[in-house]
């Protein structure tokens, strides 16, 4: 059955007609094989213009139409709607751009006209092979999953929950709060970190729309935007939170002492423990790594003293399956591993600390109740050296990137130190000071002026212990002088790394990572909170080093993106997606390799398209050696005909 094509050439006033002989174009096209109707009109986008198209389609029983006019970015939708109104599928309408790409850029009438004719022919050849397509519609599970219970995760969860959608917040540690809850005070306002965070943590635990799952990890994720299936592994705490009254009797009898992660090894804790007093959920956890054995014969002291019988040695790990429509990944950061920084004596000398350890020392709830004391001998340090960029901005040996927050927190540390030890002296070795941010520069100046912190521009060359002192050799590149300081304590602003385990998680989620292992955003400029996989969003330091306000801002951004999905009952997706010719596909998987969206996979030795994930870019089409995969409505066959038409051959 031969297809009937209609062509409509727009004058656009004189915008086109000024340099293109529109009547001639319409005339030539009327002779083009397969064209049954060809007319021109002064303003096609006007109502009479559109009606002309609609009537022609109805009267001449046209199968498809080409409108030769301005750029498709302007009126493609207009004319496709017109086509629809006339009862044909919107993809049966194509635009030939004879204004932006022709009349406006040329002066010679004959040549411009000839070109306009070719452009229109090309569009005719294309539309003739267009398939009628309807948008792909996907139902949405209107719940969200947030992975990571740090400040970013908490913020995102609350934002979503407060708009009324259910949120599952998964945290692998016994309590939410992340690294922020370990901090003493925050720059540049020096307000107490716990004071501002704990209310949010409580809000999470009390929120009717938030299902909090601590001590849990993502085991597997399948599905696609709007319809993810998540398997969550809930590790046993051996303590029933509902029964536990926080009487703390169990820790008294527990014989096992282990290092306390919360204080970064500065103190110890028992095998059964509560991470910190304000932990959410407020309950104890029995760490089997340390527990002699979950049987009364082995020990069982805690169970004996537990009045409410909250301790249950038979508690088993559970796998909980959930369905969600959107996912926010906020897995945060970890500090650069000690062993990588041995040149600074980090991990070797007890009085060489990292930033977080120093935060604990300053924290009122910390191991020293807020007194700054040396871990080695609990003396008050009189000279403290702070070293910035410990591991950052060092492409040769360590991380190439800047960890961004160190300049600020080091200034803060120096200040806090002075506030605790008034007669002490703080030195800071730095490469540059990066204090972009509201009130940041002023904050650094305050450190220098009010707390007379000595900033030394240069790197530290050697650190070693000598009769109870830590000798720090360095150079001040501004004065050129060698510097030698007998410090009592050294604090390293160690680099930020993607939190450990992030890589495995990224694999499960099928979201890309950048060269440093941080999660990759879909577009560095225009889609900074979206991951490459649609329906998955990024928040906080998991995507790149960030300070608290930035993490919170991105979390809210990610939440908004997630809500934009959850707020709809169905998602609609462009139907111009790849299609596999099974009889040609040999299952070599090259298309799978190149697909930017994980939309392709191999099933029974053939490529399979997940139409929901496919964006129709066609990279697979150009890669396939067997012409076995084509994007609907831009098939090689169509391009082939367009090439012919473009060359008049």
């Amino acid at each position, binding site marked *: 059955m031969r297809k009937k094509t209609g062509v409509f050439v727009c004058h656009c006033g004189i915008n086109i007609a000024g340099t293109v002989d529109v009547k001639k174009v319409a005339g030539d096209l009327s002779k083009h094989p397969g064209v049954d109707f060809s007319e021109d009109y002064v303003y096609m986008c006007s109502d009479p213009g559109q009606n002309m198209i609609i009537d022609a389609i109805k009267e001449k029983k046209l199968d498809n139409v080409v409108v030769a006019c301005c750029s498709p970015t302007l009126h493609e939708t207009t004319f496709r709607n017109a086509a629809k109104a006339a009862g044909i599928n919107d993809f049966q309408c194509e635009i030939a751009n004879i204004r932006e790409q022709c009349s406006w*850029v040329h002066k010679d009438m004959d040549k411009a006209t*000839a070109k306009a004719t070719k452009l229109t022919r090309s569009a005719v050849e294309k539309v003739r092979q267009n398939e009628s397509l309807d948008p792909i519609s996907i139902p949405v599970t209107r719940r969200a999953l947030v992975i990571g219970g740090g400040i970013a995760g908490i913020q995102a969860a609350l934002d979503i929950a407060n708009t009324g959608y259910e949120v599952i917040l998964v945290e692998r540690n016994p309590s939410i709060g992340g690294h922020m809850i370990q901090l003493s005070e925050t720059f540049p306002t020096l307000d107490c970190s716990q004071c501002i965070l704990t209310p949010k943590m409580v809000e999470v635990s009390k929120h009717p729309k938030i299902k909090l799952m601590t001590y849990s990890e993502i085991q597997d994720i399948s599905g696609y935007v709007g319809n993810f299936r998540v398997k969550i592994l809930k590790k046993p705490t051996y303590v029933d939170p509902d029964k536990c009254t926080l009487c703390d009797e169990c820790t008294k009898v527990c014989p096992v002492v282990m290092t306390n992660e919360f204080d970064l090894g500065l103190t110890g804790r028992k095998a059964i423990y509560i991470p910190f007093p304000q932990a959410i959920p407020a309950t104890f956890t029995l760490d089997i790594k340390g527990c002699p054995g979950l049987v009364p014969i082995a020990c069982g002291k805690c169970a004996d003293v537990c009045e409410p019988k909250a301790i249950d040695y038979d508690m088993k790990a559970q796998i909980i399956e959930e369905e969600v429509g959107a996912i926010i990944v906020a897995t945060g950061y970890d500090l650069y591993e000690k062993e990588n920084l041995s040149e600074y004596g980090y991990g070797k000398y007890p009085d060489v600390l990292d930033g977080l350890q120093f935060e604990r020392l300053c924290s009122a709830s910390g191991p020293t109740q807020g007194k700054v004391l040396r871990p080695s001998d609990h003396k008050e340090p009189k000279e403290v050296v702070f070293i910035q960029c410990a591991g950052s901005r060092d492409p040769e040996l360590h991380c190439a990137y800047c960890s961004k927050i160190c300049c600020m927190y080091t200034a803060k540390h120096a200040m806090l130190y002075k506030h605790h030890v008034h007669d002490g002296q703080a030195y800071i070795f730095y490469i540059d000071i990066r204090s972009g941010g509201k009130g940041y520069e002023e904050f650094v100046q305050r450190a220098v002026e009010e707390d007379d912190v000595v900033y030394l521009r240069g790197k530290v060359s050697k650190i070693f212990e000598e009769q109870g002192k830590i000798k720090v050799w360095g150079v001040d590149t501004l004065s050129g002088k060698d510097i030698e300081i007998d410090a009592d304590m050294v604090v390293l602003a160690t680099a930020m790394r993607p939190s450990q385990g992030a890589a495995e998680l990224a694999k499960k989620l099928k979201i890309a990572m950048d060269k440093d292992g941080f999660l990759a955003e879909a*577009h560095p400029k225009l889609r900074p909170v979206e991951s490459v996989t649609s329906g998955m969003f990024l928040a906080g330091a998991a995507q790149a080093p960030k300070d608290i306000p930035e993490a919170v801002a991105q979390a809210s951004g990610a939440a908004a993106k997630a809500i934009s999905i959850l707020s709809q009952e169905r998602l609609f997706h462009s139907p111009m997606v790849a299609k596999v010719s099974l009889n040609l596909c040999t299952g070599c998987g090259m298309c799978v390799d190149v697909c*930017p969206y994980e939309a392709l996979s191999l099933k029974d030795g053939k490529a399979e398209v997940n139409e929901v994930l496919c964006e129709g870019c066609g990279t697979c089409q*150009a890669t396939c050696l067997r012409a076995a995969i084509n994007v609907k409505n831009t098939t090689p066959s169509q391009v082939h005909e367009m090439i012919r038409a473009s*060359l008049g*051959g």
Partner: protein
Amino acid sequence: MAEKFEPRIVAFLCKWCSSAGSDLAGVSRMQYPPNVIPITVMCSGSVSPLYIFDAFNKGADGVLVSGCHPGDCHYIKGNYYARRRIALVKELLEFIGLEQKRFRMSWVSAAEGTKYTQIISDFVEDLKPLGPQTKLRRKI
């Protein structure tokens, strides 16, 4: 004769950057020779070597493939695959002895109407002295 000759160029423009760039050239009323017939594709990564050979086979005097700058691809990495594929096509065409001026690739962003104009003008100027492309053109 050479003056009379008007080269016929097929340009594969990616929808998001280069085609938008050519639109900008239009909106800004920049002028360039009418020898190019653009074919808009979704991504430079979707331009198969076959399209290029086919264009020359159908008598194109020059072929241009234009996409987003590295890092700007609307589809994240399509233009990186294009870059590799096109490099090979270019080497092959030169190896069999096609004038190397006849095939080129460019990065044109949506903001680079001027660059697009320049690229087309230069292309046409470079092709005129070469005369018609008869080497790969279908002769039967």
